[in-house]
């Protein structure tokens, strides 16, 4: 079901865009690309194969990372609002990205795109923030979910304040940084897709492997322990998997919000009850959701683009409220 949704979203997103490309040309471009004949692509075919398709693939990978991470984090914290952003990964990445601009300067590789240092800084910032949260929350035997969430929120606030201060000092970059915090897939190419793939796969696999343990955790830490679940390693594995996948996603395309919140809730509605199917379905559904949101971002105001985070929240926000009104799944 979720897989079909993703396939449909990808088809639509590759077929539609700023320029009108006949379906036959789209198919020919994908055919040539997949058979290694990318050198012989025509002008329109090149746009499909080199601009549009990698952007869609990158969007699907980012959506999958965020969706699966959201599902697992909500399970871990037994909180329907949880996502990896709660632990500071987004605010840390934003600080890293902003710092890259200051350290490397304009045009010094601080921008985002293939071969730039920006993503490396953002990734380091995101993971650094999560590690800081874990350290502050004393991720020892006495760490509780509450202490982790509290530490995450406070770490996030501190890093966000630092980012805001740095951004306001550098008015020239204000627009670029704000755009980045709303998510931006515009320049995602095959290099970004390749960079995201291992993190998305490893992240989803790690989370999937903890699926049974997450099911047991829903009964409470103590009950899970008596069922043979080692609570602390499970917690660390989920946090590591979600943070790596989310951190890589944010590093490449900015902090897209809401996917990690919505995708798992929709999938629970559609019948994914235990965590293994829920994590897989949330990955597929999250991918579809982001691909569709980015399609809207590319086409609603063409040939100009809208921030994907704005589309996601304007459509996703009301949808989420509607889900809430219908009561808990």
């Amino acid at each position, binding site marked *: 079901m979720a897989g079909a949704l993703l396939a449909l979203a990808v088809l639509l997103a590759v077929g539609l865009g700023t320029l009108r490309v006949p379906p036959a040309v789209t198919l020919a471009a994908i055919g040539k690309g997949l058979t290694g004949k990318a050198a012989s692509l025509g002008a329109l075919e090149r746009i499909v194969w080199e601009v549009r398709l990698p952007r869609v693939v990158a969007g699907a990978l980012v959506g999958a990372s965020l969706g699966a991470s959201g599902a697992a984090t909500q399970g871990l914290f037994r909180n329907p609002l949880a996502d990896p952003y709660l632990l500071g990964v987004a605010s840390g990445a934003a600080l890293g990205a902003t710092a890259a601009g200051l350290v490397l300067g304009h045009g010094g590789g601080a921008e985002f795109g293939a071969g730039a240092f920006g993503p490396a800084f953002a990734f380091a910032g995101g993971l650094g923030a999560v590690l800081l949260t874990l350290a502050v929350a004393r991720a020892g035997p006495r760490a509780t979910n509450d202490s982790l969430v509290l530490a995450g929120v406070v770490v996030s606030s501190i890093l966000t304040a630092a980012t805001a201060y740095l951004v306001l000092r550098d008015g020239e970059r204000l627009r670029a940084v704000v755009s980045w915090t709303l998510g931006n897939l515009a320049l995602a190419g*095959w290099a970004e897709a390749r960079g995201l793939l291992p993190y998305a796969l490893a992240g989803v696999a790690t989370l999937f492997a903890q699926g049974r343990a997450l099911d047991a955790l829903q009964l409470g830490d103590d009950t899970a322990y008596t069922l043979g679940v080692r609570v602390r390693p499970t917690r660390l594995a989920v946090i590591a998997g979600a943070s790596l996948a989310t951190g890589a996603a944010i590093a490449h395309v900015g902090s897209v919000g809401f996917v990690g919140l919505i995708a798992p809730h929709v999938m629970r509605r559609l019948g994914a009850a235990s965590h293994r199917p829920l994590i897989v379905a949330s990955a597929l559904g999250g991918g579809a959701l982001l691909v569709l949101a980015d399609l809207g971002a590319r086409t609603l105001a063409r*040939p100009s683009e809208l921030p994907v985070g704005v589309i996601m929240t304007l459509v996703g926000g009301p949808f989420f409220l509607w889900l809430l009104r219908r009561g808990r799944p």
Partner: protein
Amino acid sequence: MAAASRRAVLGGSLALLAGCGRGRKAGGGGGEAPRDDLGRLVRLEREPQRIVSLMPANTETLYALGAGPRLVGRDDFSDHPPEARALPSVGGLETINVERVLALTPDLVVCSEFGAQAVALERAGLTVWAGSAQSYDEVFAVTSALGRLVGRAAEAEAVGAALKREVGRVEGALGGRPPVRVYYEIDATPYTVGPRSFVGTLIAKAGGRNVVPEGLGDFPKIAPELVVSADPEVMVGLSLGEARARPGWGAIAAVRAGRVRQLTPEERTVITRPGPRLGEGLRILAEIVHPGALG
């Protein structure tokens, strides 16, 4: 494009600000009173002798008008001419320290019409003229208004006329050359400039044809697909390496010919600041778009 990005971020507060801006009571004498961009008539009792300028382009204009010696303060971004840097700064667009402005005892504050600073400064009892040029034509209008405000109307006309002559010389030197397709990038989002923006006007006068269509506004976030299909012959504002690394951009004419030109921060400032150095900005662009044409 500091002013432009601020406009985008803060534009929403403009309506609010316009609503709060009170008309000043008419004073005696002081000559013709120029209206500012908030629609207020600003009358001065006498020629201002202690001026604080909070907009980089306006600071440059005041110096060009010969009013530099009367400036007593500036904002963080007013960095030209060099003597402006010696003035005490009172903060940035959203961080103006009103107490520091008051301590300078100005009889005129020239500030941006965007954001809340005009209202805050006026509430503190200061005489405020809030306005800035956002387009090519507005440069001449603001220069003229500032000239009347500080009693340098004749100088303002001379500065405006000299700028127009400088622009005319560049246009003359480029005369007859076919326009070149140009893509100008503000940042790697990618944000670019529309044909009607200040930079867009300079590109046209520099013999370029902006690949960005009209109707998207002055600072659109452009679809990369469009840039690839429009196939610009010259790209400005990013490096060749950056352009090559972008998905599908390697096939663009400008990239293949190596005609992708990063701007130094200084060049970017000159090109994007709608003030008395617009002729200089135009020459930089013309040299990039039509190398060697200016001789």
